[in-house]
């Protein structure tokens, strides 16, 4: 069975990283594409808010208060004559920054803790499993309110409080996946090949359990955005004049009968983002992407 020619050094099919990434994105289900387009457009809108916004987010114009949506003011104006569209763009900036930060700080931390717990088992596992149980049982809003009470109202409270709790879900997910992985022959093979525990867990275990956490993070992302909006709505999150979607909706609420757009349109922005990340998440959890682990 031996090949007659000496083997050529690997040079075949050495695609660039970018090219491979593009190919693998193209192979994903359609819903991921649609979701990605929505999310990317919204992120772009947030990043380039200063260029895209026709008005400043805090520009008062009392001569133009409570105007309905029109070509001049795409989403109308509020009681102080501020342009709602511009405010929403700036609000997305703040919201995305905070939400992506709290979600993707929790994820790696939780995954590392969970993977180690699941692999090592025994005492370490019992301790970590109980701690995550406690974390999941803590009423979220109450904890955030408590942290806000300590550090004062504003975004700092959210940035501190959310990761304290939300790493626990990732830890649980990673742990349960690792319990399955650990029994597979290639994890045994890693040990039999003399690899260190560190290499076995992080180089060979974690890439195989990351998917469930990534899928969950899309749900978590939306959950955190709603939480942030909810906290601002309650007056615990963003403080005026910071524009934040929840705060905008809270302000618009008192005008709901006379100026419906003030609360409704920012709400639809939230919904749109939710649909976007939801489609990405669902597509990623779809079995068809699982080709490589089949």
């Amino acid at each position, binding site marked *: *069975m*031996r*090949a007659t020619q000496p*083997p*050529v*050094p*690997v*040079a*075949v*099919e*050495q695609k660039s990283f970018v090219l491979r990434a593009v190919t693998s994105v193209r192979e994903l289900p359609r819903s991921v594409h649609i979701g990605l387009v929505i999310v990317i457009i919204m992120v772009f809108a947030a990043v380039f808010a200063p260029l895209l916004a026709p008005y400043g987010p805090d520009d008062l114009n009392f001569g133009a208060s409570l105007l309905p949506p029109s070509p001049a003011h795409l989403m109308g104006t509020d009681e102080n004559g501020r342009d709602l569209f511009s405010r929403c763009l700036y609000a997305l900036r703040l919201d995305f920054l905070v939400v992506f930060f709290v979600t993707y700080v929790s994820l790696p931390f939780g995954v590392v803790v969970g993977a180690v717990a699941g692999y090592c*088992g*025994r005492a370490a596992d019992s301790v970590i499993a109980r701690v995550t149980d406690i974390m999941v049982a803590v009423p979220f809003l109450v904890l955030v309110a408590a942290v806000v009470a300590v550090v004062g109202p504003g975004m700092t409270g959210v940035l501190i409080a959310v990761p304290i709790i939300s790493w626990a879900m990732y830890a649980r997910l990673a742990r349960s996946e690792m319990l399955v992985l650990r029994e*597979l*022959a*290639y994890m*045994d*093979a*890693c*040990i*039999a*090949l*003399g*690899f*260190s525990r560190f*290499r076995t867990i992080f*180089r*060979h275990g974690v*890439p*195989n359990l990351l998917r469930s956490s990534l899928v969950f993070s899309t749900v978590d992302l939306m959950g955190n955005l709603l939480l942030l909006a909810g906290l601002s709505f309650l007056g615990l999150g963003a403080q005026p004049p910071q524009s934040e979607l929840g705060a905008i909706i809270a302000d618009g609420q008192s005008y709901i009968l006379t100026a419906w757009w003030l609360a409704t349109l920012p709400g639809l922005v939230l919904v749109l983002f939710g649909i976007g990340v939801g489609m990405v998440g669902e597509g990623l959890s779809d079995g068809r992407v699982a*080709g*490589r*682990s*089949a």
Partner: protein
Amino acid sequence: MSLLTVDSLRIEFGPTSNPLTAVDRVGFSIEAGEVVGLIGESGSGKSLTSRAIMRLVSYPGRITDGSIIFDGRSILEMSPRELRDFRARDVGMIFQDPFSSLNPVYRVGAQLAETLRVNAGLSRRAARNTAVELLDSVGIPDAPRRAMSYPHELSGGMRQRVMIAFATAAKPRLLLADEPTTALDVTTQKQILTLLSDMRHDNTMAMLLVSHDFGVIAQMCDRVVVMYGGRIVESGQILDVYESPRHPYTKTLLASVPHLEVGERGRRRLIPGGQPPQPGTIQQGCVFTPRCSQSREECTRVSMTLEPPDSLHQSACPFEPTSVEPMPLPLVIGGVT
């Protein structure tokens, strides 16, 4: 001195106060360059024994007694660091299921290169090239291209070839093959066995071949160790055991192998009494007693020591074998008629 000596090995599961003994008083040795077969039914403890040599018995299982000496070093007393150096470099291992023994997220060439970097200290570039050479040497056609494949793109036989390349990459002196052909179809089995013999002659590597297939063992091994219910029941040179089995279990096991020549008259003679014993159910005497056609009253009191000591052909049954039928060596590979 032997390359590997296993002595009175005991592996237990469950609570320490009331343990289940899965492997009990198992002892055998392997000389340098020798091929030893370990045969037995499912649950006889053969896989567990081979995993113990690699210190791969994981919680809740534990090695509670005995010693495993490799080239003068006690494996059971090694520190984690010594174990890492020992694994792969001194002893390599192949697993039963080629479908789950490769990591699905990495290309096979990259995985093999990683092994070489860790165990042979090669540079990234050298490891890549050596990986392709190794894949070529285990008979993977078009190795440079195949190195870029993911495991799911390869067939079972190819994956097992890749696994053999993994296990032999660091040129170990002993290869543990835990049912390397069980998950493969018959023609592929033959190819993998041929490859294993080739790899052995190339670097004079000893091998412990775990199998439940007499055909595989007969083709490959110099000596055979028969296990039943966590105990060794017989061991000896392959021809001695085949032609004059001394333990009733070995005899019935050999008789249960179907033969082409026998035809319709010779129905397979199955071992009576159903299943091997659950670990821990038989505390005293011979573990085979409940299914043995020649069992007698003394059987519940015998100690199952391998007799005669210092002999090449030992049996754990103290009674003279009755009605030894000469068995033709099964010529079929893979136990299929």
